[in-house]
């Protein structure tokens, strides 16, 4: 008897309902990182865990077909590159590395604190993609198999 990939129907159905909520909660943590506990690292972990959740419930090939590994590599590299660029912008405009070059705005509102939400966003990208990639290679990679 050929076994269906992934876990049972119950797990798949529950995953279909909850994985979007997990992903949304990750983005919430990233966006409100400068106001509440959380921030780029914790939100990025939650985003990466939503992809791992999908992989565990639906099997490896389900996620691998939809989200290319090369895209994840590109996102992870983009995260650290944009972080460096944001630091360099402060260096170029006023001579201080990682200067907060945007206006501070009104405190305790969503669009405030200068470029800190941007930094949270790129850290979240890097952590989410990096965590999924670490899981992917630990679960899937076999030496001497392809690249």
């Amino acid at each position, binding site marked *: 008897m050929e076994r269906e990939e992934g876990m049972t129907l119950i797990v798949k159905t529950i995953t279909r309902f909850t994985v979007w909520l997990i992903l949304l909660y990750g983005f919430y943590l990233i966006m409100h990182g400068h106001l*509440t*506990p959380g921030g780029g*690292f914790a939100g990025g972990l939650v985003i990466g865990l939503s992809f791992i959740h999908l992989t565990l419930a639906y099997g490896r090939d389900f996620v691998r077909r939809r989200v290319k590994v090369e895209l994840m590599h590109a996102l992870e590299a983009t995260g650290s590159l944009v972080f460096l660029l944001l630091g360099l912008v402060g260096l170029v405009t006023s001579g201080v590395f990682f200067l907060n070059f945007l206006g501070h705005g009104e*405190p*305790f509102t969503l669009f405030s604190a200068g470029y800190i939400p941007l930094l949270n966003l790129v850290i979240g990208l890097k952590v989410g993609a990096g*965590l999924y990639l*670490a899981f992917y*290679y*630990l679960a899937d990679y*076999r*030496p001497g198999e392809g690249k």
Partner: protein
Amino acid sequence: MGLYFMSFILFAVGLYGVLVKKDLVKIIIGLTIMGYGVNLFLILIGYRREGLYPILEKGRAAAAMVDPLPQAMVLTAIVVELAVLALLVSLAVRLYEKYRTHDITKIRRLKG
């Protein structure tokens, strides 16, 4: 003082796992438990009696907060621990591929 002592106990539990257990996965779990003990101890050092969480909000004075510096340091330590954990697990995976076991008493061939 009792809380400090409990974080030491947590560290000792992890050390017990690292020193006594023979399974590689249990050794890795012991290492992470040791890390949790150290993190808990550092967070407790920054505690201040009657202190609240160190986040500025509307209408709150900055004086009544716990020390945020150990918390930022521990956040960095957690990130580093995650990277170390990924490295250890990848080494365990490679060892399992080579020897087909996680028992460290059976992993003793020097070459081949």
